[in-house]
């Protein structure tokens, strides 16, 4: 029992060290703030730029400015405040509503008051899977920009297994459909990997091309072989069987479901694979220094293909999760740009599973809140995409953040810039 406890502690310690890029023996302990300094400031700066966008595209702000400078400034802050408050209340919850619900003691009211937060977790779930996909790729030195396509293929596979098999018990059908999704994504993801190994074709362009192909295959399947009978050519698949659904914990409209915990489990699994197995060690070594890995006798080809397949499998899980837990049917508008978001997540989370989980929670909150913000203040949800682009930029180039906030450059900077290969795949 005691030993077990100690082991647990060690795992926690290792986790922190790995998250901070530290090596247990040689590196000094770095404070918590130092770890999150750049990501936190990047998010903050992204939000500030978002605020500027909101104010500078608002016609009422310009109208107020014409009446006087301070009036305009006041209106600008008012609009930013309204928008960001809507974002907060829509994603975390309104504290006054919590208090009221808790005072009433009615369980339904309590659940409803906390639903915005639960809904953020629901939104975060596909982000965890997708972010892990991209992070795993980064660790192997691969830029998997094909998460979007792999997600579609995973969703298609999960949908197919979900509606075509009948009479299976839920404890078999649901995992089967979910794994089918992972397999679909893995197959789709491994193609760029195989192409890279055999022909040296760069995975970035191949992945992008395969995204477009996946999208068109989806269109074809949903209007042809996989269409739901009786919808008159609407691009929709049949509903998946009840037994294939990932169970939701509460009654509608609360959508919080088991998939969130599955995502956490998968995140742990990825962490274990990456940092506790030989395969993960090989993968990371190839990602850091291909030549060294080659000299150490590691198979670059195997690692590249398996890395892409594993990354694709995670992306496929994101698609399967969305189908089995939320939509229960496949439609063309399945993804709201998870592919691009996953890059931001991996960079934000320093390509570490734990970091990715936190980044995904943040994005879930942002996306969920932005939906509410769009309703309240008519600001297009794409503001989140702009903020995300800025966050990636600031994290990839910490020097910009440092010069904005006049921070000193740390002596032992472990830059986690992703090393990617040039065209042709040569190193």
């Amino acid at each position, binding site marked *: 029992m005691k030993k077990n406890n100690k082991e647990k502690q060690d795992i926690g310690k290792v986790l922190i060290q790995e998250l901070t890029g530290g090596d247990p023996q040689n590196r000094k302990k770095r404070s918590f703030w130092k770890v999150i300094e750049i990501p936190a400031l990047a998010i903050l700066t992204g939000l500030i730029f978002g605020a500027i*966008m909101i104010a500078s*595209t608002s016609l009422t702000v310009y109208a107020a400015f014409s009446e006087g400078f301070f009036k305009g400034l006041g209106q600008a802050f008012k609009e930013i405040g309204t928008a960001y408050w809507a974002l907060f209340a829509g994603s975390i919850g309104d504290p006054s509503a919590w208090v009221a619900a808790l005072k009433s003691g009615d369980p339904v009211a309590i659940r409803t008051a906390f639903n915005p937060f639960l809904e953020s977790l629901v939104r975060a779930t596909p982000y965890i899977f997708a972010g892990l996909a991209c992070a795993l790729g980064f660790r192997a030195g691969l*830029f998997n*920009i094909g998460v979007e396509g792999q997600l579609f293929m995973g969703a298609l596979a999960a949908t197919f297994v979900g509606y075509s098999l009948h009479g299976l018990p839920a404890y078999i059908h649901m995992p089967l459909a979910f794994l089918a999704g992972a397999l679909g994504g893995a197959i789709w993801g491994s193609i760029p990997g195989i*192409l890279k190994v*055999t*022909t*040296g*074709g*760069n995975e*970035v*362009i*191949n992945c*992008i*091309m*395969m995204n*477009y*192909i996946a999208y*068109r*295959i989806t*269109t*074809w399947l949903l*209007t*042809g072989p996989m269409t739901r009978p009786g919808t008159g050519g609407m691009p929709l698949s049949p509903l998946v069987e009840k037994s294939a659904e990932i169970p939701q914990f509460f009654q509608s409209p609360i959508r919080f479901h088991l998939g969130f915990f599955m995502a956490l489990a998968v995140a742990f699994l990825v962490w274990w694979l990456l940092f506790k197995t030989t395969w993960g060690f090989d993968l990371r070594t190839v990602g850091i220094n291909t030549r060294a890995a080659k000299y150490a006798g590691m198979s670059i080809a195997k690692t590249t293909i398996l890395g892409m397949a594993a990354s694709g499998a995670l992306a496929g899980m994101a698609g399967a999760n969305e189908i089995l837990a939320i939509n229960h049917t496949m439609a063309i508008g399945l993804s709201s*740009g998870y592919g*691009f978001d996953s*890059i*931001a997540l991996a*960079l934000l989370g320093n390509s570490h599973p734990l970091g990715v989980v936190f980044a995904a929670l943040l994005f879930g909150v942002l996306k969920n809140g932005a939906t509410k913000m769009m309703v309240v203040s*008519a*600001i*297009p949800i*794409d*503001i*989140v*995409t*702009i*903020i*995300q*682009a*800025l966050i*990636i*930029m600031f994290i*990839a*180039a910490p*020097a*910009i953040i440092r010069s904005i906030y006049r921070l000193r450059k740390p002596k032992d900077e472990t830059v986690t*810039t*992703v*090393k*990617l290969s*040039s*065209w*042709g*795949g*040569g190193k």
Partner: protein
Amino acid sequence: MAASSTTIQRIKIGGISTARRVSIGVIEILIGVFIYIAFARTVAADTLTKFVMTPGGMNVGKMADWIVPSQLTLYILIGLSVLIGIGQLVKGYGKATNGLMGIAFLCFIFAFLTWQASGKSLNLAGMLSSSVLLAVPITLGAFTGILCERAGVVNIAIEGMMLMAAMIGALMGSVTGSLWWGLLFGVMSAVLLAALHAVLSIKYKIDQIISGTVINIFSTGMTAFISQKFMQVYQQLNNPGTFPRLPIPGLSEIPLLGPILFNANMYVYLMFALLIIIQVALFATRWGLRMRSVGEHPKAADTLGIDVIKTRYMAVLLGGVVAGIAGTFFTLGSVGRFDEGMTAGKGFIGLAAMIFGNYSPIGALGAGFLFGFADSLGSKLSLLGSVIPSSLMSTAPYLITMIVLAGFVGKGHVPAADGKAYEKEG
């Protein structure tokens, strides 16, 4: 990669390895066999295929329709591709390999069209004419890539720059009421993004692919934001009109070629002008030599007194200008309206055209036409009621891009310092 191809000794004829020579020859013969099995056998002996040789709505430069017996045409095409294949197997074509491969490929396409339109009629000229228009953004995107990558900066942000320029072009064209102002502002927006790419990848030395991705995501978000916030609400802000056709006197009356090439809008002429300018500037001027040396061996260039950083900035900014022109084509040269995500991967296909065209403007133009043709094929076939669903047919440009990248058509010379940030020593 450059090192491995020189160190590994292979028997080469005109720079083509034996394995590739044989495999290409076999594929060319297989094309012939495929045409026989899939097309020629299924066509009845007496059916005719009618190709209309004047694009719809054209009054000058008319050409008589071309009516051919379907089966005979198919047999001629089979013979041609098999002959090319045998020649390739026996002695190889050296530098002309890609060109002849292209001819075999055209045989296949033409056979497919003949088969598809047997007993019906197909407007071949209209298809070629739309291929030229579809090739414009791809080719210009490839030119952007050439300008940047010849100087050693990988640019996958072409897509984002084009999208932004398309949106700004439509918006400013509508606001100012002038297409030229729209073009100018569109180009400026792309140049701004190019400047961002340059600063991120040259000054801050972040991975050039990440930097490009940032710009692509930013453009996707920004264009969708502005479009939803303003252009969809106030329709008059999204109505710039399009550049009119400019028939060139005399030339536009040539049958077939006239209506396709010389009675097009400004962008087609601009594409050819840029082709000549970039080709000459890169390969016949001191400026071009310096730029290429920066892309090949920046340290050597630096030693000789060439300002590597400045050259790279200039190359990326010039690339931004070309990408901006390409972007405004979508709105001002084509549909006269901005839709979200309307560039649909053309920037990335442009990159593939650049690689296919071996980093030369002429090659890029050829590749651009090929992709443009594949694109227009997809849309034409859905009108003909093809057995292949149009959504699957429209994957053709993407599939071709992947085949090209796989080095199936041979790998050209990638600038040696492509994608590497330059670190000045001392």
